[in-house]
């Protein structure tokens, strides 16, 4: 089966860890992830600027590793990202901001990518709130 996974919360939210463990289980079961779409506070999970205490799970880092190791299509909604201060090189230049903090492996794009993924997939699950 083909899954779309929406991440709507930051890496500090338990929901974001749940999303990751779920995504890992999806692949382990032999299913496909068409796209992981980061929206609302989920865009913060794609920041490369987070500092996590040594004795805590670095969920953002784990998400990044999972995406890159499995060559997943990880899209971060550009509008949601801009208003929360997550920018790539192009946007930082465009808006003359100092920090380029979109982690490697992620791409900024529009909500059209969410709908495109839904049209290709069989199941969609979202993780957000707390």
């Amino acid at each position, binding site marked *: 089966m083909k899954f779309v996974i929406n991440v709507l919360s930051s890496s500090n939210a338990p929901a974001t860890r749940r999303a990751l463990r779920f995504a890992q289980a999806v692949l382990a079961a032999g299913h496909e992830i068409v796209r992981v779409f980061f929206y609302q506070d989920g865009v913060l999970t794609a920041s490369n600027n987070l500092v996590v205490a040594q004795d805590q799970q670095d969920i953002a880092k784990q998400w990044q590793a999972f995406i890159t190791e499995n060559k997943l299509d990880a899209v971060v909604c550009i509008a949601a990202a801009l208003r929360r201060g997550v920018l790539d090189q192009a946007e930082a230049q465009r808006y003359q901001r100092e920090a380029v903090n979109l982690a490697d492996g992620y791409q900024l794009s529009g909500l059209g990518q969410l709908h*495109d993924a839904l049209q290709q997939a069989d199941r*969609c699950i979202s993780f957000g709130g707390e």
Partner: protein
Amino acid sequence: MAKSVLLISRQAPWAGIGAAEALDIALAAGAFDLPLSILFMDDGVLQLLDQQQPQALEQKDLSANLQALPMFGIEQLYVAQHCLTVRGLADNPLALTAERVDDQRIQQLIRQHDYVMTL
């Protein structure tokens, strides 16, 4: 045939950007000509209330985006009757044309769509 989405919008309009970000999903579907219906439920029904004054909060008026929905081809709008009633809004005129639906009709709507996204 394109897969259909039922977007259930549950956030109050001025409680944060949740309501606007849910609406953006609907507008994006419309821009790509995809079948999407919206059900306003729980505090989401408050988005449809007439005569609100967001400028008092220095906020952009969400109703501009709501009014744009039919222009984007998003015409199937529903509002949960029960949620209007418990908020004392059963008799209030709505700012948008939305079909008032009871619980049974909502159950049916869910079953009629390929995807349900509740925000």
